[in-house]
């Protein structure tokens, strides 16, 4: 018995030394990157220019807006889409952000998240439509999406840094790529799950391909699409925070400082800022996925001021009568 074991381990050693081939995966990757850097320089320059234009302007814009405007805008949105309780939460939460002296960082992050989300949706949603329409595209896209979703978040930072250096632009680009998969996936699923007879009805009443998409498939897939958008925003937020490692700025900075300098307090404040932003973005985007035909903002406001405090808060219920 022992003899056999010793034998087999000897065998394994010889097998190991003779049969293991260094696949040079690392070198191969480097070669690809080098090749792309050498030949697609113009492409990367253009992408960088567009991204930095959008991201810079969005962050500048949010920082330029006076805080009260943002308070009011977000609170009204919360009142219209969710409930007056949530609107109240938004006001308190934003006040906490100001109290922590993290307002500029929060606005930076909001701008970066929006820029990255817009780009991710701009590419991801049409890709999802293609994937739903063609089994061939789906067959190719699916393993790639699986791969992208299993890759740890900060692995995305490496190629971004190689191609675009450090700073805001690579941060946003890494975020775009990292946050795109759910938008693609849920668009695909949403369209494929539209009931067969609805699609048939669309065709039977003379829709062409584009009409079918606009009048039947996208509206019926809307809850799924909105779930995808919601997930994309959430992923973008988490990635933007991580991207502060390569100098993207925003709420990731205090968190990073907390880790690197073991300053617990400032790290926690940064984390709290992220959570607040996450809750607001999450609830707001989720509300757009509801099929409910909510009352208009004006009705909500009127209800808020005409109804007494004994209101049970069920603002989803149909008219006050």
């Amino acid at each position, binding site marked *: 018995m022992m003899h056999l074991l010793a034998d087999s381990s000897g065998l394994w050693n010889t097998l190991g030394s003779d049969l293991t081939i260094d696949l040079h995966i690392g070198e191969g990757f480097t070669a690809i990157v080098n090749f792309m850097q050498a030949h697609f320089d113009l492409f990367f320059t253009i992408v960088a220019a567009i991204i930095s234009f959008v991201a810079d302007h969005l962050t500048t814009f949010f920082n330029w807006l006076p805080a009260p405007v943002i308070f009011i805008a977000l609170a009204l949105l919360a009142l219209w889409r969710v409930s007056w309780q949530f609107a109240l939460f938004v006001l308190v939460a934003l006040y906490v952000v100001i109290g922590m002296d993290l307002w500029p960082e929060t606005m930076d992050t909001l701008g970066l998240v929006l820029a990255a989300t817009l780009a991710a949706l701009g590419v991801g949603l049409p890709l999802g439509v293609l994937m739903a329409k063609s089994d061939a595209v789906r067959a190719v896209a699916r393993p790639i999406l699986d791969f992208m979703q299993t890759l740890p978040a900060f692995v995305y930072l490496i190629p971004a840094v190689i191609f675009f250096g450090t700073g805001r632009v690579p941060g946003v680009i890494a975020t775009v790529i990292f946050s795109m998969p759910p938008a693609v996936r849920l668009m695909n699923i949403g369209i494929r799950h539209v009931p067969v007879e609805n699609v048939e009805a669309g065709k039977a009443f*003379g829709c062409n391909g584009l009409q079918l998409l606009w009048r039947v498939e996208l*509206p*019926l897939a809307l809850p799924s699409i909105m779930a995808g958008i919601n997930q994309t925003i959430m992923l973008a937020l988490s990635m933007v925070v991580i991207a502060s490692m390569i100098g993207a700025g925003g709420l990731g900075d205090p968190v990073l400082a907390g880790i690197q300098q073991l300053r617990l307090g400032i790290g926690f404040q940064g984390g709290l800022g992220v959570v607040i932003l996450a809750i607001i973005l999450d609830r707001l985007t989720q509300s757009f996925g509801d099929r409910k035909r909510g009352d208009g903002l004006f009705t909500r406001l009127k209800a808020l001021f005409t109804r007494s405090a004994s209101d049970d808060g069920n603002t989803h219920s149909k008219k006050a009568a």
Partner: protein
Amino acid sequence: MTTKLSVKNVYKVFGPDPKDAMKRVKRGETKDQIFAETGATVGVSDASFDIHSGEIFVIMGLSGSGKSTMVRMLNRLIDPTSGSVSIDGQDITQMTRHELIELRRRDISMVFQSFALMPHQTVLENTAFGLAAAGVARGEREQRAQAALESVGLGANSNSFPDELSGGMKQRVGLARALAVDPGILLMDEAFSALDPLIRTEMQDELLRLQSEHTRTVVFITHDLDEAMRVGDRIAIMQSGRVVQVGTPEEIVRSPANDYVRSFFRDVNVSHVFTAGDVARRDQVTVIERAGVSVRAALELLKRYDRPAGVVHDRDRKYLGTVSVDSLLGCVKGLGRRDEGKIEAAFLHDVPVIDKSTPLNDLLEPVAESPYPVPVVDENGRYCGTISRAILLLTLNRSEEEAA
């Protein structure tokens, strides 16, 4: 009787290699055999039949017999593997994508089993769906959609959303959506199968009423014999992809083509199945469309169509009376040369009026005693058709055979 839709040697094979499967079908292999050996499903096999203008043509068969596949080949939601489908003599299997879309927008529309309404659109928007796809301007399409909704009794619900309606109401919207484009052909795939029995009968009556107001060519799919008998002018019976028999309900009950067809009728006593309303529709009688029409004009009409008698009803098809050539002539004699005469004066008094729900057994006496075919009306007094002695005897005779 003109042919509206003509189906010739149509096959549909689902699966990876339809050509190979087609060869096997032609060699005479059975559906099961082909499926076992190639994995291909023969949905429809060598179907041929003609559908006449203005009839309700029922396709009946057990689940999986190919009815849905068949009806979807009539507007090419499913492309036939081989064979031809012609509408008004034009082969739609040869149409380009563009021609096909035009055809669907103008000539042929569809009602679905699961209603297939768009949940994000109001009832009015849903009804206007086909018109919107065709690019009809908003004002006009909403007006036409509203008219279609009113014709199915949902004029007041145009701003509701589908999820606020009951099943029967939803299918009325489905019907209105199909009618709004004013199609020559209406395809209905198990349109009433998802409804409660009571609502279902109500919808069948609704369809017959709409048909009596504006005759269209209807292809009606069902797996239910009662429904087929109630609404069908003619019935095609499908058995595992093949059309095994086509004929009027009477013909099919009298001489079923095989045991499969016979099995549908095993538990059915036909004299119970049929009421006056069922028999009446099939008797084509010249109808004078307007009250207040002149005696001379009516006489002219009867002569032109070579009919001894005719029925008079108003614009809402409310039955007013029956006139005969003799009674009209009698009136004309009493008129001056210029005088046109009121038709009411020529109404016959010895023709009874029968309610459409009267069982056939109770019809014998009134029909036998009346000199002319007996008019049948619904509960609102609307004209449904007439019953002649010949038709009644034929029907009763058959049901006795069946009982024996």
